[in-house]
């Protein structure tokens, strides 16, 4: 079953919420680190090429602030891309230090300011990339500290440089792990939320369907059957009472047909997917719904409703008729296997059109032998769809070769 129905809206994504929080925390931490590094920036100005210090410090301490400012308007993908870009820029700054460090060595206890703030880049890397890539970046960023320190102090204390590398790995690992776990937790919340939403939609749809059935059952029982029975039993269809009763029934049916339920005029494609998912699960649980393509524009609710109804009728037809006939002496186990029918529903979305195909590999039938008044195909599928503007439906079937019902709509 497709999980496209379970897509949470980006605005309410927990994963995006986590990334935004970490982006804000990162910005606050950057400000703090900038304050702590300021004296080092001034002190170390004389050891590197002119202007490098300004450009590097602006990039490392300025970009996280810009990221935090942009975060509320960024999508998850965009925000992760920006964090990845920052991690790359940070690495380039650290590596460029080797090129611009021209007036060393630095006296003890000075150390290049870039080596004490590695976590500022490893956290964005964890936000941007897969965990494996983030861990590789972390190790690489920590390892580069050793040569930086060795070159900076003229190899005065190689052992200490190595110790700092190990220390940096352990410290950065804490933040990287927390970031990865937090994002994963956000992702899990998004999945669970979408599942809960789909479940709620399904439950609400099922309840509404049952309620509507009960209402229509009452109408059929009280009005329609009563009218038909009165006309047939009394034998005086021209009697004013029966005629009035029939008129009232027709009016009631017409009112119901025209009454718009509290449904929006247009619905979003993800709602169509969710409703189709519910219908497919409800009618034929083992049936796979495959969704391809993408569509942002909404779909007229009347079209969506008719398409869902037609899909539901196609599946019901398949359930009723697709199982092959068996010889009377077929063993129960073999019968179960022989009557198994594979069904699949394909939904293709595009900016111009919506196409649905309901297929089974059952016994099929001869289209020419279907009576004109047969409800399933004639009324609920072809009749209902073909009258809608831009909509079309077709049925293909052959004895022994299964059935394919195609339903489509274009703008």
């Amino acid at each position: 079953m497709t999980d496209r129905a379970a897509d949470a809206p980006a605005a309410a994504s927990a994963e995006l919420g986590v990334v935004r929080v970490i982006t804000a925390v990162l910005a606050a931490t950057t400000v703090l680190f900038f304050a702590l590094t300021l004296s080092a920036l001034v002190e170390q100005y004389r050891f590197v090429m002119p202007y490098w210090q300004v450009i590097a410090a602006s990039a490392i301490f300025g970009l996280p602030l810009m990221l935090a400012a942009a975060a509320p308007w960024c999508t998850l993908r965009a925000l992760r891309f920006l964090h990845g870009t920052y991690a790359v820029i940070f690495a380039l700054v650290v590596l460029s230090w080797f090129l611009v460090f021209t007036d060393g060595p630095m006296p003890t206890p000075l150390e290049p300011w870039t080596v004490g703030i590695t976590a500022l880049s490893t956290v964005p890397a964890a936000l941007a990339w897969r965990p494996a890539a983030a861990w590789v970046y972390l190790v690489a960023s920590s390892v580069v500290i050793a040569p930086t320190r060795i070159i900076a102090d003229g190899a005065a204390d190689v052992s200490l440089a190595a110790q700092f590398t190990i220390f940096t790995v352990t410290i950065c690992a804490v933040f990287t792990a927390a970031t990865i776990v937090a994002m994963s937790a956000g992702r899990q919340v998004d999945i669970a939320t979408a599942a809960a939403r789909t479940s709620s939609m399904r439950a609400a749809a099922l309840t509404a369907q049952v309620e509507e059935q009960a209402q229509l059952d009452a109408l059929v029982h009280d009005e329609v059957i009563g009218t038909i029975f009165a006309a047939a039993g009394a034998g005086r269809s021209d009697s004013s009472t029966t005629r009035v009763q029939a008129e009232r029934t027709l009016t009631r049916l017409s009112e119901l047909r025209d009454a718009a339920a509290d449904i929006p005029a247009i619905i979003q494609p993800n709602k169509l997917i969710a409703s189709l998912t519910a219908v497919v699960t409800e009618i034929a649980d083992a049936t796979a719904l495959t969704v391809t393509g993408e569509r942002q524009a909404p779909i007229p609710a009347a079209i969506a409703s008719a398409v869902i109804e037609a899909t539901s009728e196609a599946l019901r037809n398949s359930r009723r008729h697709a199982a092959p006939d068996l010889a009377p002496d077929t063993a129960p186990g073999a019968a179960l296997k022989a009557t198994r029918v594979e069904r699949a529903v394909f939904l293709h979305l595009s900016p111009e059109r919506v196409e649905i195909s309901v297929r089974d590999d059952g016994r099929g039938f001869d289209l020419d032998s279907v009576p004109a008044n047969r409800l399933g195909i004639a009324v609920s599928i072809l009749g209902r769809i073909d009258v809608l503007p831009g909509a079309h439906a077709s049925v293909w079937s052959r004895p022994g070769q299964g059935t394919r019902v195609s339903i489509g709509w274009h703008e």
Partner: protein
Amino acid sequence: MINRTTSPPWLELPEITGRGAHLLIWFYYATISMLALLALDDVRSPAIVYASVGIFGVVWFVLTQDSAVRASTGVCVAVITGCVLTALLSSGNSITGGFSQWYVGAGALAMFYLSLRGRNLLAWIGFSAIAVVMVGWGLSTDDRLLEAIILVARQAPFVLVGSLFSVGIRRTGKKLEGVHRAETARVAAEAAALARTTERQRRLWALDSAVGSHLRRIANGVELTDDDRRELLVAEARLRDSLRARQLDLPEMIASTERARHRGVTVLLLDDCSPAVVASEALSRVRDPAIRMLDAAVDGTVTIRLLPAGRPLVATLVADGAEYSRVEVASPTPKGPSSQ
């Protein structure tokens, strides 16, 4: 009407009580202990370093033993006490800076963990206590007050990150919870409306196809013939079937039932299984013998009944006319159809 919804889950602080988090903690402890022992030349008394490393071992042990997402007050107090005690013991022990002052960073990291485990206030109290000890030590020296202040300031980001993160996640979780609740209610209402409209349109089309023309003729005052009245009675019976035996409302069944009724057979279709759904395979095993029985009947009564779910039989088919016959359709698992 929505009578059942599933509550969306909350976004909460990531759980850092699992094996991975413990592994990281012990990895850090091993590393920092090694670095502390490598810096013994920079301290006055190695014994204090050994004792401090031991105390921190206890601190991490206590922290990792508490598996609750929100650390208990007892654990927090123990962790803070251990960190402050280490600062008291070790602050005067270091001759120079560097890794000989490892305990300040380790204490800050412990407070970071307390923040992530929902203990922001205690984390800041603990860090402040460590800071007071360090500044106190700085004041007690001739020229190391600035070193103490910088040392504390450089570790502050740990606690700041922890507390900002936990506050941010909690606020985001609350905000998302409200958004999700409203969105779920909205999509559920829309799904209900869509399902209601779909079901209504389906039934109305079917109804119109079955009896629409009859109703219009009656409303128009058209004189009915005997054949018309017979048709009406059959149509009325079909409508009753659609109410009493929704799952038997299959085109072939409808056709066979109507033919039988036209021959004068009384047909009774009953669905005692609803609202449970009969599996399509089982239904097709009911449909075929039912059609055969209906087509064979010439008088009397044919009763086709879907039985309540959970019974060994799916349906019973009884023809009681010139001849009596009864067919039992078994549920799919035990055995196939049998007749007597």
